[in-house]
Every structure is written in C-alpha cells, then in structure tokens.
C-alpha cells in the first residue's frame, strides 16, 4: 500500500481546559472515502476541526501528503489541498450566493466549474443574486458544499452534509460524492445519517468519547450491524 494521503496519529485536542480528543488515529488513502460515525458529542466535528487547524489547541501528528500539518498556519492548510465543509455551514450574510460560491480561492486545477455546480444544485442558480443567509437551511448546506467543489481541493472534510436536507437532495449529494470519488477525490465524511453513509463510504470509523473504537471496510458492514445497533441505535 502506498503512503496514505492523510495520516493522523495520537491526536489530542482541547477546548480551553476540557480535553475532548484522547488520541485519535486515522488513515485515509488517496481516493478513498471514509466515514466517521458516532453519537452526538463524541468528537467527530472536533476531529475535523483539528485536522483543518481551526482548533489549534491540539497535539499529536497530522500528516497530509507527506507534510506535517500541525506546524502549518491555518491559511496554508487549504493551500495544501484540504477542503472543509463545516457543520454550521458558514454561509456569509454580507455576500450574495454567487459571491459565497466564488469566495474560496482556487488552490489547484481540477475543481468543478461554476456551470457544473449550478447544474448540480439548480436552487443555487435560481437564487444566485440573493443574500447568502437568506437561503433556506438546506440551500445553505448545498452552497457550503458547492463552494469547496470549485477550489480543486484534493481531500474534502465533510461535516454532516445531509443534516436538514430533503431526501431528494440527499440522494443528489450521494450521487455527487460518487462522482467525486470517480474523479479520485479523497473524502472524510462525518455522518449521523447511517443509511446515507452506508451507501457512499469505503471504510468506517466509529468514534466514542474522543477515540476511534472500531474500524472496518464496507464489506464487513453486515457483520458489524449488531455492534452499530448497540452503539448508535441504528
């Protein structure tokens, strides 16, 4: 196996005094799509925020494309090829939908074009001149994803991209993710929606109280259902 694209070793993270991650280990190969499952408050979002460098009180090793990211300034992480879709969406009120879409700087070739994005999310096209936060909750979620697809990031960190979305849209997003995978995109997905995750992910991690407590490929999914039912109630 070639060196993983993203390799996280013994990651600890803190919010102020409270110690939230207790030694997370995670590897993602180039072109792979992994999914982190876990109940509320187990540290999934925190893991993504630490990898991205948004949460800076952390220790351990985060290697991306062979480079140690813990020393890299926040605005350089994106340049290295990591793209982040936050759970709270982060749409900018003072920018129009289109400006929101165009905001993140292109970091590499190979991102989707604006036309492709509008084809994928017709809602956004229709509302492209309105204020970003005037979109409905679900539309904002689409916009948050769409704008990262433009930048040409090699690896996407998606935090619950289906939260609050209508089933049809979730389906569409599932298709987008398949398409991205087809293009060789690497994805780290955090999901509550197990049914959705089961359809798209190659490998699963289960997170519990700041640690990864289980890891298995999609092929083992049926065998793991009991455990998942116990842990997650799915």
């Amino acid at each position: 196996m070639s060196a993983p694209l993203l390799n996280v070793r013994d990651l600890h993270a803190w919010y102020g005094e409270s110690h939230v991650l207790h030694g997370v280990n995670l590897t993602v190969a180039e072109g792979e799509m992994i999914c982190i499952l876990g109940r509320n408050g187990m540290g999934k979002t925190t893991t993504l925020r630490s990898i991205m460098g948004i949460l800076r009180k952390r220790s351990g090793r985060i290697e991306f494309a062979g480079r140690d990211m813990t020393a890299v300034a926040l605005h350089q992480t994106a340049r290295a090829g990591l793209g982040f879709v936050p759970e709270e969406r982060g749409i900018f009120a003072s920018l129009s939908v289109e400006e929101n879409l165009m905001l993140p700087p292109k970091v590499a070739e190979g991102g989707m074009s604006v036309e492709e994005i509008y084809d994928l999310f017709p809602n956004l096209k229709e509302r492209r001149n309105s204020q970003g936060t005037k979109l409905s909750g679900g539309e904002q979620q689409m916009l948050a994803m769409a704008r990262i697809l433009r930048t040409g990031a090699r690896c996407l960190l998606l935090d619950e991209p289906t939260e609050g979305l209508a089933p049809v849209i979730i389906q569409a997003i599932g298709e987008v993710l398949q398409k991205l995978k087809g293009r060789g995109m690497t994805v780290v997905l955090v999901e509550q929606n197990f049914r959705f995750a089961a359809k798209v992910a190659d490998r699963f991690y289960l997170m519990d109280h700041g640690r990864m407590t289980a890891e298995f490929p999609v092929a083992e999914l049926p065998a793991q259902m009991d455990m998942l039912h116990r842990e997650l109630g799915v």
Partner: protein
Amino acid sequence: MSASLAIQAEPRVVLSARGLGRDFAGFTAVNDVDLDVEHARIHALIGPNGAGKTTVFNLLTKFLQPTRGSITLLGQDITHTRPDKVARMGLVRSFQISAVFPHLTVRENVKVALQRPAGLAVQFWLPLSALDRLDARADHLIGQLGLARWRDHRAADLSYGRKRVLEIATTLALDPEVLLLDEPMAGMGQEDVAMVAGIIRDVATERAVLMVEHNLSVVADICHHVTVLQRGEIIAAGDYAAVSADPRVRTAYMGSEA
C-alpha cells in the same frame, strides 16, 4: 393512536391560515397557503429545502409579517399582532437552531417560561425567592420530560438532544394551545429521536402541534396530517400514506428512497 382519533369526533381548528403569502424583494417564498391546525392532532409540514416551511412558521408566529392572507388563532385574527402577543395568546414555537438560555440551569430555563403566565415577570421589587412557588410545576415538567437528573445543570452543558427536549419543556411550560416545532429531530442521534417523538406524541393529546420534519419515519409514525410544500405552495395534503403515494411528492421531495 386510533383511540385518540376516535374521541376527536369533531375536530376543532385552533390555528388557520388563508391565502398566506410572503415575498422577499421580488421573490415569492410562500404563496397562497391554506392551513388548518386542529386540537389534539399532530400536523406535519414537509417539503424540499427552501420550500418555505420555516417561513410559514415565521409568518404564523408573526416573526415575519405576511405580504398576503390572514391568520386566525383561536378564533381571533392575528394577522397584525406582534409576536410576543401572539405567544401570549397561546401560539408558541421552537426554533430550527436550538434555543435555550445557555447559562441558566434547566430548572431556571423552565421557570423563565412559567413566570409570565404566573404573573411574576415585572416585579422588580420582589426577591428571587418569590419565584420559588414555581418550582413544583417546573420540576413536574422536567420530570415528565425525563430531565430530572439534569435539573441543576446549566443548559449549555446538556447534549444536543436534551437541549431540544429542554426547549420543548420550556415551550410546554406556557401551556400553549398550539405548539410549532421546527425540525425538532434535526442533528439528533438515533436514540434521542425516539424519545423526543414519544414526548411530542404525549403532549399532543392536549394541544395542537405543527411540526416541520425531514425525518420521514418520524412523520409516518406520529403525524396525523401532512401538508407538503414546494416552492412556497401546497402540492399535497392528507395523511402520510396518501401523501407519500402522491407522485408529485415523490419526485419533489422523497426521491426514490422512501
């Protein structure tokens, strides 16, 4: 469930909207919506993202002023009433983004809601202990919703799901005639979903509930009546079985999954 339906021989409409519409700078978010919410029934409002569900909520609770149409609450026209007044008349909402008072304890959160109906809101000359007589009722509510263990915790320290439950508890403290819940299960873990669904079903026996929800299994489970919104207009209404069979609803909202 069927038993409660049977008792309801003659449904009583407590909240109704006629021809409701709202434009935003040339964009019509809600158009010509007729809605009747009945006592002791759970009414679901579903529809694709951006269909206008939250906007309808905002209109009904008067957080937004409708461009067209009228709203009647318990027989009174509230089309031009202020939101806090509407709340006092018995129409109370929860928010799509969870809304509690983070630095107050669970009990204090509930007591804040109890203060107004108890006529203990403007007394700046009384000591805080004047509020002690609300404790019993607050504790009762807290117990009812299974929050007793967390009574003295700050709301900020609760898990996501419990915050939503707390929000429902404060809402119930007002003993509203009509309860509006905006995506009460959003972002909630599976185990909490079942609990909250149960609670909603319980409270609906004595009041009307209107809720927005994307979790269709919940809708199927507990809702008596479903209205489907698309592009601000009603495309279908009826019970879940009828609505989910509607091809328009399937293409616009559910997709091939459900």
